[in-house]
Every structure is written in C-alpha cells, then in structure tokens.
C-alpha cells in the first residue's frame, strides 16, 4: 500500500512492529504538541491582551496544560439524566480520532533507516492521500453533532445543529481548493504533493503551491478550514452569549477534556496540512551537515507559524453573525473556488485557455453578483407584499412613498410602516428607480 518502501516487500513481523511504533510515536508527539499548543495559545492571547497568562506551573507556565489535564481527569464525571448515555460517551472519541487520523498523512521529513528498514517520516502514505482528509473532516461532524444531540438538552442541540450545518457548508469550498492542488500535482498522495513543490522559480522564489496556484486557493482553504474547525471567528458553535457553552455544555471531566484536546489537535493538524498543501511541507534550504534534521526543522517552523496565525485570528477578530457566515461560504467561497479551478485547469493546457477562463470568471462573477442583488431585492419586496397583503408592485410604491430605501429584510420595513399606521398605498411611482 502506498509508496512507502517499508510496505513494498513482504509484511514481516519487524515491519508490523515498526508500523505500530510509528503510530505510537506520532500519537505521543501530537499529544505533547497539543499540550504546548494550548500553552502557546493562552500565552500569546495573554500577550495580545496585555496580561501575563499562565505562569505558575513549571517554567513560564509550561506545565499548565498538564495541570489542567490532571485536574479534569479527577473531576466528577457527570452523565445527564436525559442523555443517551451510549452516544454521549462515544461522541468525544468521534471528535478526537479524526484529528489524529488526518495527521497520519502529513509528511514530516524525508526517509530514515531504522534497524535496516527504510521508511518515510510519515505514518501512512496511502495512494488516496488527501482524500483521507476529506473523509475525516466529514466524520468529525459526527462528534459535534452527536455530542449535542445526546446531551438531551436544548442549547447543546442548537449548538451542534449550527456546527454541523457550518461544517457541511464549508466542506465543499475546502474540497474544491484541495482539487486545485491535486490538479497541479497530478496525484492524491501527500508525499507527491510535497515532492512536486521542491525546486524554485528563477533559483530564488520557492516553487510552492501558494505561488503556483495563485494565492486564492490558499485563502479559500484557510477560511474554510477555520470554519471547519469551529475556530474563531467562526466559533458560533460555542457562542457563549447565546448558547451557554455550545455542544459541550453538558460535558464534564475527562470527556470535556477530550473535546478540548480534539479542538487543539485539529488546529495543529490543520496547520500541518496547510503547510503540506501550499507551503512545500518539509521543503527548505538544506545545508550539508545534519541532512536528516533540516526538513523536520522547516516543517516544524512553518507549522508553528500557522499555529500562531490561528491564535492571532482568535485574538483579533470578532465572531461572525450566522447568516453572514453562511453567505460567505455559499455565495463567495464556493463560486470563487469553482471559477478559480477553471482558471487553473485552463493554465494547465495553455496560457490562452487560462486567461480566457480568467475573463470568463470575471464576467461570471459580475453576473452572479448582479443576480444576487436582484434576488435579494425581489425577496424583500415579496416578503413585504405578503405582509401587507398587496401586490409586490404596490408594496414597493408604498415604501417609496415613505422614503425607506434601506432594505435589509422584509421585517424591518414592515415594522416601520405598521408603526406609522399605514397598511397600503396605491400612489404611483417607479418601483425600480430608487434602490
């Protein structure tokens, strides 16, 4: 399976042991990274908010996450009376396992030799590679959804419905930006993606996918992934002002810790995936000594940068409103990524085809924008006419008479007009002339 030299020959006991060791080491490393990531996030946010942050447990508060973990472990474990106890206990694992499985396809470095076996520095290199990311991100919906439902309480349910709707919506944009990477690589394997990004343009600029694809797929992917992870500014799942604590309100003790762990594990994993897809993975300058170390070092540094960007986003941006979130996903990201995919496909054939696709994209974007504007206006008109029990044209006229040209939604206009005691008006006027 895959191109890993370890698995090409006969599967002996030594190979089996080595695979298990790889999995265990990767899991341990990821857990330690998550611990550090939690500390890092708290420290950086504290700095940005002019606070000190955790500084008691260990040097610089490094052991704070460990202390929190131990505390949570010994807390009382509550299972609500009205919950569905089996699903309630299952959900945290469904949230955590996909995060780890996704990490297994990330190439961390080149090849190493252990006890005579040569192997890739990555847990698994299946030919379907990046599809595993899509599969796991669709599985991670279950964790959130079932957690909210099985709690048997309304706020968690609301939170989980929001979350799953959001995750499903952004999955499409995410998938389309991944397709762009697959298109230039010609393979689904993550290792092939990293290999195809080696080298440079003109000897100086790195041959990374972010430049090869134009920056747009990367931006779409970053936004979609942030929404997929329910990280701020897309963390409507746990909007504490509206939903108490979101889908994990009823969770306590180690199960709550698992959700927390899953969130940060996902953050680290997705930083690594971004690096793999768009920033060349372990690619970087490779001075002569310590040949095996440099790729790993570059990979860790790049991943760290994206981990920092996630924290930065959290500290800097306010949460989006739910309808804006859905608008961004469906009306901007998906059409844009589809159009850009056409451009990239055109560029694969020839420059002429690529630029004509670009022109088509611009024209299409203009048309779509116009269609949405018209649709929104007719929606507002229809809603208003329905409430006034008159024809759409008359409703527009009445609105024109009272000078309310600021259409946000039908309801707002309705409130105003009824407050003025007017039900309908049949005065003439050009309905299209004033918006």
């Amino acid at each position, binding site marked *: 399976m895959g191109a890993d030299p370890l698995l090409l020959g006969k599967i002996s006991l030594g190979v089996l042991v080595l695979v298990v060791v790889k999995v265990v080491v990767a899991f341990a490393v990821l857990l330690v990274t998550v611990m550090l990531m939690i500390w890092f996030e708290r420290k950086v946010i504290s700095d940005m908010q002019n606070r000190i942050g955790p500084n008691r447990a260990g040097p610089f508060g490094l052991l704070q996450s460990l202390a929190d973990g131990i505390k949570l472990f010994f807390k009382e474990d509550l299972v609500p009376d009205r919950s569905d106890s089996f699903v309630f206990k299952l959900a945290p694992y469904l949230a955590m396992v996909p995060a780890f499985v996704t990490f297994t396809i990330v190439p961390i470095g080149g090849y190493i030799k252990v006890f005579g076996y040569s192997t890739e520095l990555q847990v698994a290199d299946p030919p*379907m590679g990046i599809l595993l990311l899509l599969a796991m991100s*669709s599985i991670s919906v279950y964790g959130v959804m079932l957690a909210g439902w099985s709690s048997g309480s309304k706020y968690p349910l609301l939170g989980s419905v929001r979350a799953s709707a959001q995750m499903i919506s952004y999955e499409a944009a995410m998938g389309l930006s991944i397709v762009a990477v697959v298109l230039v690589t010609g393979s689904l394997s993550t290792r092939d993606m990293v290999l195809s990004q080696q080298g440079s343009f003109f000897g100086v600029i790195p041959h990374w996918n972010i430049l090869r694809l134009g920056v747009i797929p990367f931006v779409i992917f970053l936004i979609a992934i942030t929404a997929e992870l329910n990280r701020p500014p897309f963390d409507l799942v746990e909007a504490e002002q509206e939903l108490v604590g979101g889908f994990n309100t009823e969770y306590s003790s180690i199960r709550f810790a698992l959700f927390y762990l899953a969130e940060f594990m996902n953050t680290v994993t997705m930083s690594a995936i971004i690096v793999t897809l768009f920033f060349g993975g372990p690619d970087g300058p490779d001075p002569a000594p310590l040949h095996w170390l440099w790729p790993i070092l570059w990979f860790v540094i790049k991943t760290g940068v994206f981990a920092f960007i996630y924290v930065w986003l959290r500290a800097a941006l306010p949460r989006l409103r739910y309808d804006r979130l859905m608008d961004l996903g469906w009306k901007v990201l998906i059409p844009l990524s589809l159009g850009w995919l056409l451009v990239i496909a055109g560029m694969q054939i020839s420059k002429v085809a690529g630029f004509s696709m670009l022109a088509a994209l611009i024209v299409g974007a203009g048309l779509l924008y116009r269609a949405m504007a018209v649709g929104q206006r007719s929606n507002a008109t229809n809603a208003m006419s329905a409430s006034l029990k008159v024809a759409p044209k008359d409703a527009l006229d009445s609105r024109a008479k009272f000078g309310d040209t600021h259409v946000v939604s039908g309801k707002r206009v309705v409130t105003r007009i009824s407050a003025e005691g007017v039900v309908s008006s049949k005065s003439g006027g050009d309905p299209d002339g004033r918006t």
Partner: protein
Amino acid sequence: MFAAISAPDFFTFAAAAIAAVAGAIGVVTLRHPVHAALMLVMTFFAIAVLFVEQGAQFLAAVQVIVYAGAIVVLFLFVIMLLGVDKKETVFPKDSVSWKLPAGLVLSIAILVELSILAKGVWATGAHSVTAAPNGHSNVGVLARAVFTTYLLPFEATSVLLVIAVLGAVVLARVSKIQEDISSESALEDEMGEVNAR
C-alpha cells in the same frame, strides 16, 4: 481456483467482514433510530476497509466521504430535527406466521445465489484483479473510463443531479412566496427582529 490469501489480508478481511455484518444486524435490530444510523456508519466503514483491501482505494475514500460523511449525516439531521421518538412506537399488529418462513426461504435463496456467483464466473465474467490494472492509479483508470467510454451517461447523470437540486430549490421557494410572512422560518423572524431594534 482460489488464490492463497496471506495472513494479514485474511485478518483484515475477517475483522472488516465481522464489523460489516454486525453493523448490518444492528441497523435492523436496534430500536433507536440514531443508534441504527450509527450502526449503518459502522457497516459503511467496514465496507470501505474491504475496498482498500481489494486495492480500490479511491472507492473506499468515496464510500466514507459520500455515504458515511454525507448521507448518514443527512439521516441524522432528519431524525434529530423531526424529533423522532426515542423508541419505535408503531408495531405491526398482524405479525402473521408466514413472515418468518418466507424470510428464511428468501435468505437461503440469496445465500445460494451468492455462493454460485462466488464459485463460478458464468454470471459475472472473469474475477476482478486485486491490483490496479496496468499499474495505473485508481483515479487515472476511473477518470479514463468516465471521460471517454462512459462520457454520455456521466454527463447525463450530472445534468440529472443539477435538475434535482434546482427542483428542490424551486419547490422550497414557491411555497414560501405564496405563504404569509408569519410562516417564514423562525430564524428569519429572529433576524428581522434584531434588525428592527
């Protein structure tokens, strides 16, 4: 006729097959709809593992993405949002005696059919190969088939899907315009109130 199967292959097959069958039994026996849906996910996963074992990696990924990731999520949405009862409340009263024997006869017939299909090649043609043909990748072979030999059915299917989506949108929109504003979804009402403030 049967090639010798290696030990790792056998264990993978046994584990996946047991999981698939257990999941399938769970789907029909569990009373709670959500539990049944989760069992369905387990079956899909086990089948995906069987696909991987056969070298059909792409099919395995699609199996998980489409069936486990999209369709069952949709099932769960419907179950949760429509508030299906925790337990099945409707039991058929006429549990007549012929159902059990009929089911048994049917299952034996299917078993016989399956074993005939497995033993012989007259119905299915030659046995499938366990590796990707001619050293091409899964995706490459699939794409070549879909975009050359089966181009017309493929495009027709995509048109059909687009029509289905458009139809759903049209059906959902028409009723909304005709109805009173009061019957609009609670979310829009709420948003309107926020705007009015």
